[in-house]
C-alpha cells in the first residue's frame, strides 16, 4: 500500500515537473504580456465574467509568497477576473475570520493554505457547504479531502526530499548531512525524511543553528564536517543554511556536494558558479497561478483536476544548467 502511494506520488511529481516547465513559460509570457496590448484583449474577451476569488494564506513572509501572489495576480490578469489576496501573519484566527468574511461576501472561490488544520478545516467545510469551491494550496495535502476541496496545489516536502536524495545518488555521495535551521518544524523534518528515504547512503539530520545567526550556522556546520570526514554531501533545507554550508565547506577546503531548498539570489549565483549542485524549487508561482486557474475552470466549466490526488508543483530543480534562466525569471518574480 505504502509502496503504491509512493509510486503514485512519484508519478505525479514527474508529471508536474513536466507540466511545470510548460507552465512557467506560460507565466513568462503573461508577465511579458502585462505591459502589452494582449492583456487588454483578454480583458475584453472575458468581460462580463466578474468573478472574485479569495486567496487566503498564512504568511506574507519573504520572496516566496511574493511569487505565489505574482502567480495568482498573473492568472487573474490572464483570465480577466478579480483575485483578493489576503496574506496572514501565521495566525490561524485571522485566517478563519478572512475565510468567513469571504464566504459572507459571496466569494466565487477560495484558495487557502492550511498550516493549522484543527482551526481551519471547519470554516472551509462550511464554505464548501455554502457552495463555494475551495482549493488548498502550499500546505494542507493531508486535509483537503476532509474539507471537500477540489484539490490541493502544493509540494509534498517528503517527495521534494526524495527528489533531493536522487540528486545526491546521481552525484555519487555516500553520506549526507541534512542541515536544518529550525527545530520542531514538521515541513523541514519531512524534507530530511524524504532524503533518507530515497538516498542510498547514510543520512544524518541535524539542527545547525538558526538563520538569524549565520555565523553560528557556518561554524557549526564546519564543526560537524570536520568531525565527520565521511560526510560528502550537505542538504540545506533552506537557502540561508545552504549558503552557510557552502562557506563552511569552502573554509575546510573539502569537496562536498551541496544541495539546497528554495532560492535566494546568492544561492542562484552559487549554483550558476557551480559551487552548489542544485536547489529544490517548489515552483510556488504555480501554487498561485494554478489555484486561481483551477477555481476558474471549475466555476466556468465544472472541471476538476487531480482526480482526488493533490497536484504537485514540485520539486523542480535549479542546477548549473538552468540557473541562468531561472535567475532572469526570478528577477521577474515568477520563480
Amino acid at each position, binding site marked *: 500500500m505504502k509502496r503504491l502511494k509512493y509510486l503514485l506520488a512519484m508519478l505525479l511529481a514527474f508529471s508536474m515537473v513536466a507540466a511545470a516547465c510548460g507552465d512557467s513559460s506560460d507565466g513568462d509570457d503573461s508577465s511579458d504580456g502585462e505591459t502589452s496590448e494582449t492583456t487588454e484583449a483578454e480583458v475584453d474577451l472575458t468581460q462580463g465574467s466578474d468573478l472574485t476569488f479569495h486567496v487566503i494564506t498564512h504568511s506574507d*513572509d*519573504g*520572496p516566496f509568497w*511574493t511569487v505565489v501572489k505574482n502567480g495568482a495576480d498573473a492568472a487573474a490578469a490572464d483570465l480577466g477576473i478579480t483575485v483578493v489576496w489576503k496574506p496572514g501573519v501565521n495566525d490561524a484566527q485571522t485566517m478563519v475570520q478572512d475565510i468567513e468574511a469571504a464566504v459572507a461576501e459571496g466569494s466565487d472561490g477560495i484558495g487557502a493554505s492550511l498550516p493549522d488544520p484543527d482551526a481551519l478545516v471547519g470554516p472551509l467545510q462550511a464554505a464548501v457547504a455554502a457552495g463555494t469551491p475551495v482549493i488548498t494550496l502550499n500546505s494542507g495535502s493531508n486535509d483537503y479531502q476532509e474539507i471537500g476541496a477540489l484539490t490541493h496545489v502544493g509540494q509534498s516536502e517528503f517527495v521534494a526530499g526524495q527528489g533531493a536524495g536522487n540528486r545526491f545518488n546521481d552525484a555519487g555521495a555516500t553520506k549526507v548531512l541534512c542541515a536544518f535551521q529550525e*527545530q520542531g518544524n514538521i515541513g523541514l523534518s519531512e524534507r530530511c525524511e524524504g532524503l533518507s528515504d530515497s538516498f542510498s547512503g547514510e543520512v544524518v539530520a*541535524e*539542527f*545547525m*543553528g*538558526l*538563520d*538569524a*545567526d*549565520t*555565523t*553560528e550556522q*557556518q*561554524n*557549526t*556546520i*564546519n*564543526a*560537524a564536517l*570536520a*568531525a*565527520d570526514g565521511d560526510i560528502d554531501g550537505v542538504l540545506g533545507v533552506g537557502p*540561508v543554511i545552504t*549558503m552557510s554550508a557552502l*562557506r563552511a565547506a569552502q*573554509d*575546510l*577546503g*573539502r569537496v562536498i556536494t551541496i544541495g539546497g531548498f528554495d532560492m*535566494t*539570489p*546568492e544561492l542562484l549565483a552559487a549554483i550558476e558558479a557551480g559551487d552548489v549542485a542544485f536547489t529544490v524549487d517548489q515552483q510556488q508561482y504555480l501554487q498561485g497561478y494554478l489555484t486561481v486557474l483551477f477555481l476558474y475552470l471549475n466555476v466556468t466549466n465544472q472541471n476538476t483536476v487531480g482526480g482526488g490526488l493533490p497536484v504537485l508543483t514540485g520539486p523542480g530543480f535549479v542546477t548549473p544548467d538552468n540557473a541562468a534562466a531561472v535567475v532572469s525569471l526570478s528577477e521577474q*518574480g515568477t520563480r
Partner: protein
Amino acid sequence: MSDTAAATPTTDERLAYRSVFQRVFVRPEVGGMIGAIGIWTFFWAVSETFGTVGQTFGWLDIAATLGIMAVAVSMLMIGGEFDLSSGAMTGAMGMLIIYMVKETGETGGWGLPLVVAIPLSLAVALGIGYLNGYMVERTGQPSFIITLATFFALRGLKLGLAKREVQQIQMARTDEATDFDLFRPFFAAEWARNDHQFELRDFTFITLIVLAFAIVILGISELWFKRNESLKSAGLVQFLAGIVLGVAGGVAMHLTDGVAANIAAAAAIAVGVLVGVNGWASWRYEPIADRGKLEIREDLKRRLAIGVGLVVVGAIFAVIIDSSSKRDVFFPFTTQGIRAILFVGFVAAGLTVLAMASQGALSINPATKFAVTSIMALAVVFVALTIFVDSESAKFRAAFFSVVMFVALVLFAWATIVSRFTERRHPDRQSDRLGARMLVAAALLLAVGMATRLLFTIDAEILAGIPPAKTSVRLLWFFVFAAVLVWVLANTKFGSWTYAVGGNKEAARQVGVPAARTKTQLFMLVSFAAWLVGLLIAFRINSIQANVGDGEEFEFIIAAVVGGTLLTGGYGTAFGGAIGAVIMAMPLLGIAAARWNTDWRWLFIGVILALAVIANKFIRDKAEGIRR
C-alpha cells in the same frame, strides 16, 4: 570593582589579611575563566576535532560577534537596563548599510559609497539608541517594554522596507559599493593559517607557555610569601641557573627526536623549573626557621589512604572497562562515556581528598606539608601514566599526558617552596602590586603563545595535509572593543556612573550624576555595537536576511549573566560579558563537533546558565562579604 587583582591600597593594620585564593577567586572574571577552561576541556575530551585550530577559530568566530554585543549589553545591564532591540538591530543595521550602498535602480538602493554610508548608518544606529534611552527616561517605563516595542518596530521595518524597496526579504550585495575593496580589509580581512609558516612556532609556543607558568608561580609566590629584609644574591644565581637549564631543556626538546632524548630534555626542564623557583624564593623570601619533623597523624593517614585509594580505583576502572565499545548501556551513556565518568569522577574525588589532606598538613608543620603535597604530586604523575598507557587517542597520550605531567611538576615545585618559606600574614602593597603585574604579564605571554600556535603553520603540518583554517579580522574588533570597554568601565567617570545608575539611580542623581544622560549613552553604546556587528555580517556574507539577529538579544543577555553581570543592575564587568560569549560559543560548536544529537543543545545551554547563575551568586556574596 575592577582594579588590579590583589592591590589592597591601604595598609590598615585592622584589615584582616585575606589569603591569595580568597583575593583572586572572589573576582567574577576569574570564576568565568575557570568555567570557560572547564567547558573547553570537556569538549576537547569528548570531541576529536574540537581542539583543532580550525574549530578553535570556529568558536572564536561565533564568540566575536556575540561578544561584541555581550560586552555592550553587559554595560547596559550594569547600568540597570535591558535592550531587547539589540538583536534585531544587528540585522537592521547590516541591511541599512547594504541598502545605502546598493546600486540605484528599480529594486536598488541609494548607490552611496561606503565612505558615506558607514558614518551615515552609524548616525542612524546612534539615533535609535538615543530614542530608546529617551523613551525609557521620558516615560519612566521599564526598558524591557520600551525596547520590546523597538524590537517589533525594527522587525517590521526590516521586512516591510526590504519588500517595498527591493522586493525581497533580504538586502543583498554589499559589494555593489563603489569603494567596497577599500573597506573590505577592515571588516572582512581573513587570515589563512596555511599561508603563514613559522618554523619556530612550537618552540616559541612551548617557551612562552613554560615561561608564563613559571611567572604565575613566581607571581603567586610574591603574593603569598613574606619578603626578606634584604635580598639574598645566592638565590638570584640559582634562579638564573634554573632558567638556563630550563631553556636548554626546551631547546634540546626542539632539536632532538626520540623517546630517550625527549625524556632527558623533559627532565632538564623539570629540574630547571624546580631550581629556578626555589632560587627565586630564597632570593626574595624569608625562610622558615624550623620546618619541624615529619608527623603523619592518624586522621591524616586516613585521608591519604582514601585519596590514593580513590585515584587507584579510578585507574582500575579505566583499565578494565573496554574503551573501544560505544554501545549504549543506558541512555544517554555509552560504555566509553561511563568509563570516562568513572575515571574522572574517582580521580577528581581522590585528588580533592589529597588536597584537603595537604591543607590539613599545613597546621602540623612544613615538613609534613611538603610530604603530603609531594604524595599528591605523585598521584598526579600516576594519573598521567594511566592516561598514557591506557588511552587510544593520540591527543590524550601526547598533549594531555604532557599537561598532566606539567601540573604534577608545578605542584611539586609549589610543595618545595611552600614548606620552606614563610607565608605573609599582612598586606604588603608593593608585593601585591608586583605579584598582580606578574600575573598580568603571564596572561599576556600565554595569549601571545597561544596566538602564535593558532596563527601559524609549519612544514610538517602542511606535509601531513591538515585542513585549512582561517580566522577573520572580526576577532580583532572583538578584542579591541572589549578591551576599550573594560578600560572605560573601570577607569572613567562614565564607567563609575554606569555602576551608580544601575546600583541606585536616585542616589546617583542626588549627588549630581547625570543619570538620564548616562543611561541614554549606554543605549547608544549597545546600538553602536549592533551597528558594528551588522557591518561585520554585511561584509562577511554580502547579503542579510530580514530575520537576521531576531531573537539573538536573549543570547546577549545570557552571555552577560553567565559572565557575572547582575540582572538587576549595578554589578558586573565588561570582561565578564566577553568571557560569557566564549562560554556560550563553545557548546554551540562543541555539540556539533562531538557529533551529539543537536536536539539537546538547549538543555546544555540551560544547564550552563543555571550553573553560572549559582556560581556567580556564590562569588558575589563572597565579594560583598555577606554572611548567611
